[in-house]
């Protein structure tokens, strides 16, 4: 086992949601679970981090922030979506303001479900991610690591909800309202 696997440093970010998963991430860092056994250290600095743990669904305001944090991290790095909201958007998926899971903003390596995610699941997800981290380290050493492609800049207006985009639904609603108003005037 190489050293990158023995010393993964963690950066965690809480996108919009109920914050339950972020509290579980912090719980995993407490003495009860003691992740420092595996060399895991919590850092506040993306430039020092190897793992990026994100909780919560993503809205339009957070995309640039998440992308900046991701781009400041040095290769080899992996992203772990913690909790069902970070994986798919969860119960907030069809809200008009959320875009969906973390993968609308940056490429995700490990999806860890749960509502709220359990600290044991987070540790399992990190252990799963370490294999990917090691693979990326080997590719980087060989000089053949391709930078992961960022998804196209998403917009809440283009999000499909019940078969149509939010923008189309709004246009239809406005047209309906105008029509109703016109009929009332007549």
């Amino acid at each position, binding site marked *: 086992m190489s050293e990158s696997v023995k010393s993964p440093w963690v950066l965690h970010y809480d996108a919009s949601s109920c914050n339950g998963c972020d509290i579980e991430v912090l719980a995993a860092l407490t003495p009860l679970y003691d992740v420092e056994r595996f060399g895991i250290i919590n850092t*506040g*600095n993306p430039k020092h981090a190897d793992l990026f743990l994100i909780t919560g669904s993503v809205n339009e305001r957070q995309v640039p922030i998440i992308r900046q944090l991701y781009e400041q991290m040095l290769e080899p790095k992996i992203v772990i979506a913690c909790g069902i909201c970070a994986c798919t958007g969860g119960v907030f998926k069809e809200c008009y303001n959320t875009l969906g899971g973390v993968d609308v903003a940056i490429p995700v390596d490990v999806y860890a479900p749960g509502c709220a995610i359990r600290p044991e699941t987070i540790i399992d997800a990190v252990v799963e991610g370490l294999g990917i981290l090691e693979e990326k380290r080997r590719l980087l050493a060989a000089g053949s690591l391709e930078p992961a492609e960022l998804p196209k800049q998403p917009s809440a207006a283009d999000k499909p909800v019940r078969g149509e985009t939010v923008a189309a639904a709004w246009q239809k609603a406005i047209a309906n309202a105008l029509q109703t108003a016109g009929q009332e005037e007549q």
Partner: protein
Amino acid sequence: MTPLSFGVALVAFVILGPLLGCFLTGADRIITARMQGRVGPPFLQPYYDVRKLLAKERRSLNSFQGYYLILALIMTILSGAFFFAGGNILLVVFLISLSSLFFIIAAYSTRSPYAEVGAGREIIQVLAYEPMIILLGVFFFLITDSFDTSAVASLELPLVVALPLVFAGLLFILTIKLRKSPFDLSFSHHAHQELVKGITTEMSGRSLAVVEITHWYENVLFLGYVGLFFVWAPPSTLILAVVVALAVYFLEIVIDNSFARVKWQFMLSWSWIVSLLCSALSLVLLAVLNGFVV
């Protein structure tokens, strides 16, 4: 000190310095974890960290930053080599100050606001500990009539007997030098009390590995300062010096785990008060011991 003894000390310090420093840091992390009711990382965790950092992608906001950090490392190594070869203690002190200076320049060179806050705090730390370190050299000369650290080998009693208060002052500022709470203002090993990552905010990958290795060398050198107070004529006293240095390191770990970070005003004022009081009282003590008033 002959060129030969300097060469031997240089080679020995280059090889043994980081080994000892790594072991000290590894032991520190396990002891800290046990004090917090945890199991803690493997003993060689600091080594794994540095190996990982060396394998990371290389990226820097200022391409000169890496050179400044290498210079800081070289100054630390030279300083340690002069110290353990029995060289001039003033040279040791000024070389290690130069090392701090390069470290500070490295942080300022990136123009990052967070790194600048850390670098400013590092300057305050230098300001806080430097008087005591220079006074240490002066008192060393008063007792041994020489600035060479090898002069302790001809003493009949250890320095700590003649200079107990200077030793106490050194212990006070050692917390700053070893970057332990409550005086770990410029950067902390513990993320929970940090403004991004203090002076090391913009140091990543290979640069951060160099910072870690420099810190290993520094720790060994500063524990050498402690040991210096417990060495006298019999060569077996070297063992006593090592034991005392390790005990002091354990004490520092206890202090690190017992206190939260203080404000810089507290650190600066108290380290100057302690430095000046300790040295003034030491002068009085020396005068009494010598049977005359200076």
